[in-house]
């Protein structure tokens, strides 16, 4: 007799073997030599994770209780596999072309990448998976207990053993399922290990069966007699349960996350389905072949009251065949582990992709780049979710008391997960199905399942006996197991009937009443018409459906009117047999060109490719397109703004152009003036120098006089050039201000004498020195330059007989104001606006300067932050200089 310790060692050894296989398979696949890993056989075998420990142990138990009812669980999947041509093929094609990672991903991407929906499916899958995992825990624990009973040395306690089994499976699943993070979510190693496990469990069951039939009963004939003679010897299956269970198992076969994982996500080649279509039903047939014989023999041989769920173990044990019992134990262990690994993988993928990652990403949003740690975050998220899922399974087992028969726990899980079916099938075959419909349907079915099956299944732990008996608040028609007063139904049948029918009705009604978003409609067309979009030859009706899609899309992009015109023109071109054109390559090319005008070439190509082409586009691409179109909308509204802005800009440009033309004219005239001012003194210089060179017999007086003229004119040239340079520096703004502090008085003290020096004309300057004690913070030299200019102008141009210049300084409204007024005839009004322009000259005196002085003064005052203006009404010419006091205040 094998002791418990040996059993544990065998289990560990088996796990190590599985790891080895998985590792080797991954290595082979990485090396590119693992073609056989992707064979139809491996695919078929991997599908057999459908057969869990529940199947392994529970089928016999079920048969011992209710005869042939157990086959329903196998017949459902058989029907699904047999109808692969229009069912699974479509599911697999969609799953592959949309690159989905889980059933939650598939549902969410069908309904416009709705994460809400993904979360709903995830929760449903986790809750549906919880009883199932509890089931695996129970079966392993029970099988341990059988060996423990027979092992007098073992210190076996049920409670702690469940915990350790749960913990062990969690570690196992974490190590297996999250070893690597594959981009396309395919796991060569795991799939291969699972295929191996299917072989092990099939072999174990067949071995026990063969032992029972030929070893115990003595052949097929006697076995059959024995069956008929047994207490389950007559066909005695409830019609409702028979139909419901076939349907339920078919539904669960499609909807179970772990089945979806191996069937769709891990599918390497659609053609594998062709083989699996017959090979997998065959596997199921073999699995169930010996179930009834084992049950019958168990009932015969074992004492009254022994658990029929464990006949697979106890029958060989009772016959003293320990090694067969060990093999059978390993078969059951295989079933449990493979189921747990794949379920945990599938569920953790869903949890991390649809719950943890969105939350994590939204938390990271503020901090910008996230690329670095994502893989780690995903891995941690998956590991934690596996642990949580296993913990949930453990608590469910504790809450349900571990007493319920294996089969009924499994059916509870089936009924839960089947709530996805309406949304899934509707999404694949009905383009009118909407996100709202899916959400409403799922919620209705889900809540009904919890209320009528899950909570009552916990046997008083979460739902009181009164509610069960008399309904909540005494409302009899709401009794969980007899909704609307219909009593006497089997609880599972009751739940399946109500939840799925109300789920489907809610789904359809809400779909009909709601309106899908563009992305949903696009995805709907992608899913429902997946074959038209890819390989199979298209029929005429399929083409028109595509034209409809194209029409919808085109209308959205071009607007209804232009789109209809375009399509009508195409119909006419094609001969007008229907009201929609056939999607011929020529038409599609024209359409693409037409669309690319609105949305850009790449987008148009991608959109048409999605509807028509073989190119499959992921949800991310679709989303990108959707974003792009949203941006286009935003952009077009921006365009309107822009065009207004453009008009404005054009006007500004015209204005700028006018200004430029003016400036250019000013420049021409400036150059022409500069030329004049330069040529005039040069003319005199040249003429007199030639005279002095060529003329003989000039008198000494003449020579002196002409040389003086040449000298004066040369000085005039120099002054002109100095002024021009000064002006150009000032105008270009490159002048460096040399800011210093002094009083106005001392600036004037310096300016007056230097202005008056070197001239024989007299000018009396009158100042009120007491008012001039104003502190200045400015470029004192430049300011002095302005003063000198004004004073020497007065000296040159004042036409009074006794010229007098009055300089008065005041402090007016925060500004220093200095007025320079002479007693001459002043500047005539029509010339006043001109005096600050370059080369503007008033009066006839030419020798004075080039007419740049006041222009320079104006520029200087602008640089100093003040201004210089002509001051009318003062009798003579008067100029006012203003300086901001701010300079002064800033200096204090």
């Amino acid at each position, binding site marked *: 007799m094998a002791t418990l310790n040996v059993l544990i060692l065998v289990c560990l050894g088996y796990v190590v073997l599985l790891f080895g296989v998985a590792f080797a398979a991954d290595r082979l696949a990485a090396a590119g030599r693992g073609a056989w890993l992707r064979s139809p056989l491996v695919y078929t075998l991997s599908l057999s994770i459908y057969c869990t420990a529940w199947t392994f142990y529970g089928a016999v138990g079920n048969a011992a209780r209710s005869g042939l009812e157990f086959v329903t669980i196998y017949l459902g999947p058989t029907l699904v596999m047999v109808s692969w041509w229009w069912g699974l093929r479509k599911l697999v094609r969609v799953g592959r072309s949309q690159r989905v990672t889980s059933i939650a991903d598939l549902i969410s991407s069908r309904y416009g990448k709705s994460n809400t929906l993904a979360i709903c499916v995830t929760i449903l899958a986790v809750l549906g998976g919880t009883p199932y995992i509890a089931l695996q825990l129970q079966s392993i624990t029970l099988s341990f207990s059988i060996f423990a009973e027979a092992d007098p040395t073992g210190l076996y306690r049920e409670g702690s053993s469940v915990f350790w089994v749960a913990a062990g499976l969690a570690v196992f699943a974490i190590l297996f399922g999250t070893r690597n993070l594959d981009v396309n979510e395919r796991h060569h190693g795991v799939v291969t290990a699972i295929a191996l496990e299917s072989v092990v469990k099939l072999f174990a069951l067949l071995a026990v069966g063969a032992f029972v039939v030929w070893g115990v009963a003595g052949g097929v004939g006697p076995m059959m007699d024995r069956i008929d003679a047994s207490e389950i010897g007559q066909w005695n299956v409830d019609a409702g349960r028979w139909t419901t269970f076939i349907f339920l198992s078919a539904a669960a076969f499609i909807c179970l996350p772990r089945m979806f994982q191996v069937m769709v996500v891990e599918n390497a080649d659609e053609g594998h389905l062709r083989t699996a279509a017959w090979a997998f039903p065959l596997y199921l047939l073999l699995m169930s072949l010996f179930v009834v014989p084992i049950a019958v023999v168990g009932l015969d041989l074992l004492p009254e009251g022994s658990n029929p769920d464990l006949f697979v173990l106890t029958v060989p044990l009772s016959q003293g065949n320990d090694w067969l019992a060990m093999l059978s134990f390993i078969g059951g262990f295989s079933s449990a582990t493979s189921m747990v690994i794949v379920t945990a993988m599938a569920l953790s993928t869903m949890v991390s992709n649809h719950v943890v990652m969105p939350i994590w990403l939204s938390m990271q949003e503020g901090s910008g780049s996230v690329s670095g740690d994502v893989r780690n975050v995903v891995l941690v998220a998956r590991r934690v979710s596996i642990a949580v899922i296993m913990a949930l399974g453990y608590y469910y087992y504790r809450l349900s008391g571990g007493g319920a028969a294996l089969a009924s726990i499994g059916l509870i899980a089936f009924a839960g997960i089947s709530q996805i079916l309406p949304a899934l099938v509707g999404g694949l075959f009905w383009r009118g199905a909407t996100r709202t419909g899916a959400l409403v349907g799922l919620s209705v079915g889900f809540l009904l399942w919890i209320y009528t099956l899950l909570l009552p299944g916990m046997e008083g732990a979460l739902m009181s006996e009164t509610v069960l008996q008399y309904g909540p608040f005494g409302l009899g028609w709401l009794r969980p197991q007899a909704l609307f007063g219909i009593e006497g139904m089997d609880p599972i049948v009751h739940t399946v009937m109500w939840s799925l029918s109300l789920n489907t009705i809610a789904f359809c009604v809400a779909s009909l009443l709601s309106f899908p978003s563009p992305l949903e409609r696009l995805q709907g067309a992608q899913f429902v018409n997946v074959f038209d979009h890819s390989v199979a030859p298209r029929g005429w009706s399929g083409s028109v459906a595509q034209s409809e899609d194209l029409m919808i899309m085109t209308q959205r992009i071009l607007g209804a009117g232009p789109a209809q015109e375009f399509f009508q023109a195409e119909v006419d071109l094609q001969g007008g047999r229907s009201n929609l054109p056939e999607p011929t390559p020529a038409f599609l090319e024209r359409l693409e060109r037409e669309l690319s005008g609105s949305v850009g070439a790449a987008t148009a190509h991608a959109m048409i490719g999605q509807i028509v082409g073989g190119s499959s586009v992921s949800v991310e691409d679709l989303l990108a397109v959707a974003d792009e179109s949203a941006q286009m909308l935003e952009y077009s509204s921006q365009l309107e703004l822009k065009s207004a802005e453009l008009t404005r800009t054009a006007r500004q440009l015209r204005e700028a152009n006018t200004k430029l033309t003016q400036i250019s004219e000013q420049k021409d005239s400036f150059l022409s*003036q500069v030329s*004049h*001012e330069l*040529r005039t003194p*040069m003319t*005199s210089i*040249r003429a007199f120098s030639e005279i002095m060179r060529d003329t003989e017999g000039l008198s000494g007086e003449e020579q002196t006089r002409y040389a003086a003229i040449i000298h004066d004119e040369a000085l005039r040239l120099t002054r002109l050039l100095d002024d021009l340079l000064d002006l150009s520096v000032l105008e270009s703004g490159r002048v460096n201000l040399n800011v210093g502090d002094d009083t106005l008085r001392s600036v004037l003290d310096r300016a007056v004498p230097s202005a008056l020096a070197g001239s024989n004309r007299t000018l009396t300057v009158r100042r009120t020195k007491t008012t001039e004690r104003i502190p200045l913070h400015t470029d004192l030299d430049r300011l002095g330059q302005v003063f000198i200019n004004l004073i020497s102008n007065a000296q040159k141009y004042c036409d009074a007989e006794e010229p007098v210049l009055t300089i008065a300084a005041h402090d007016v409204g925060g500004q220093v104001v200095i007025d320079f007024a002479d007693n001459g005839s002043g500047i005539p009004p029509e010339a006043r606006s001109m005096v600050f322009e370059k080369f503007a000259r008033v009066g006839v005196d030419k020798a004075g300067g080039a007419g740049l002085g006041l222009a320079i003064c104006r520029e200087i005052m602008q640089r100093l932050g003040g201004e210089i203006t002509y001051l009318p009404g003062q009798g003579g010419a008067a100029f006012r200089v203003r300086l901001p006091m701010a300079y002064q205040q800033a200096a204090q």
Partner: protein
Amino acid sequence: MSRKVLLIEDEPNIAEAIRFLLTREGWQVETHAEGSDALQVIQGADPDLVILDVMLPGKSGMEILRDLRELEHMQGLPVLMLTARGQSRDREMAENAGVSRFMTKPFSNTEMLTAVRDLHAQATQS
């Protein structure tokens, strides 16, 4: 028989240089520095030749020339025009206005003398 030239030029130094040159050639030189009354001065002086600056205070040389050519007995009067701006546009404008010779400042003395001689020779031949 004395030859008379009227020089209308507002730059005193240039006027003095031209007066010096032409006097030595045997011309009788009269000068005037104002644009506004130049037309009357020309009519009053009745010169054999006019030397006219473009940039004059009061009235530009171009306008003076245009007005001069409007007068019937003045159409044959040789006019030598001087400008310091030196733009081709000025030369065109002057030719349209009926100038006899156009010179850009600064000029060489020989240039000036040759121009005056040529103009005078043409005028006396015709």
